[in-house]
């Protein structure tokens, strides 16, 4: 490998742009990670973030409804999905961070289905880079 190529790799590691939702740090608490398991009750396909609402059964048997903040639905639509792609009743696991305002809200940092597959993974992207 040439010297320049090696330099490119190292620099690539250091300088690649990191797209971040800076507002999330104001909304969710980095010191309060949370894991939830629940059943989808409603989907809101809205921008800037979509929301998945899930019923979570606590250890006390009580069911509490949580709102999980996810990404832009436009990205989903471009990958061939639509409002029917996450049916009510689907079981999902959420690994995220608790909302700072004390409500039953979390960001869906990592959302998986019962079989461990990441949510929506595997759908094609017709808007692929040319």
């Amino acid at each position: 490998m040439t010297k320049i190529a090696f330099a490119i790799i190292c620099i690539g590691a250091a300088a690649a742009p990191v797209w971040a939702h800076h507002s999330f740090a104001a909304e969710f608490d980095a010191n309060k990670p949370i894991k939830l398991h629940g059943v989808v009750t409603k989907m809101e396909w809205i921008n800037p973030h979509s929301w998945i609402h899930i019923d979570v059964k606590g250890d006390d048997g009580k069911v509490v409804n949580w709102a999980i903040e996810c990404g832009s639905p436009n990205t989903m639509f471009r990958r061939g999905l639509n409002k029917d792609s996450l049916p009510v009743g689907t079981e999902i696991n959420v690994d995220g961070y608790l909302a700072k305002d004390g409500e039953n809200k979390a960001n869906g940092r990592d959302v998986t289905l019962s079989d461990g597959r990441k949510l929506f993974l595997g759908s094609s992207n017709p808007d692929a880079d040319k």
Partner: protein
Amino acid sequence: MTYRWFSITLAGAAILGALPAFAQTEKAWTAPRTPDGHPDLQGIWTNKTITPLERPKDLGTKAFFTPEEAKAYTQTTLERNNKDNRGGGVRDVLNAYNAFWWDSGTKVLRNMRTSIITDPPDGRIPPLTPHRQAQLQEQAEAVKVRCQRPGCAITNGGQPGPADKAEDLDLMTRCISFGTVVPMLPSAYNNDYQIVQAPGVVAIDTEMVHEVRRIPTDGSPHLPSNVREWIGDPRGHWDGDTLVVDSTNFTGQTRVRGADENLHLIERFTRVGPDTLLYQFTVDDPTAFTKPWSGEIPMGKTDGLLYEYACHEGNIGMKDIIAAAQADEKKAAGQPAGK
């Protein structure tokens, strides 16, 4: 001001006028025409790319990748940017969600450049003027002072700012404008723009946040200088087969990497192939930057559609941020953070 505009345009034309090497091979291709005889720029175009706006410092004046270098860079960048890599702390919160939801590109620019910026030769934004530096410093100090109390929240990678009033938050969080319109720079996802063309006007619809630039090509003059607009006032004319768009009358609050209200943006659109729209821009703002800077993105045609991005209407996060700031304040004052 007129003289300076003229000389900048000449300089810009010298830098931007000649088609870049990658487009030369496609030069034989002639763009289809609209009924009024101009090249047809219509379609949905994307500017997504892993190539950064600014060239990494260590690359100095190395402006182009070799194919081997591009491959290595792509691999490293995609691995590093993969949002399914988990860490912890604030950084993990900022990464927001799974890789599925991100769509910021998987390839380097077709022109094989190491940065979007083509001028200055180091591929980086020139230094701010001392005047502008002082202004921004003053603003940052004022924010720190306002934030010397509970109710402040991290807004941008650790930079504190008050969060209990909407007007203190950034334009993106407020859903007013993302940094993707002027100039047309890529971001995390939804990097799509639709161009619709008719005699006397070209419209560019930026998906985020459904902002339309209505560009008259009928020779009408700019708005008077007392009228300022968030995304400026664009005027277009045809220079051969290139649409040249000249935008002025900015408010200075759109935060184009430090630009102020004297921002003068010059853009050039040239259809160089069936699937390629060459986009070139020059940021000329003499009170903010020590010299003008220019960039280039060969945009790709996409078969998808533009989707509505109604941001403000669904901005639940904004309510949550302000409510969180209120909760912080109450906690610090010894009150319960109640509903």
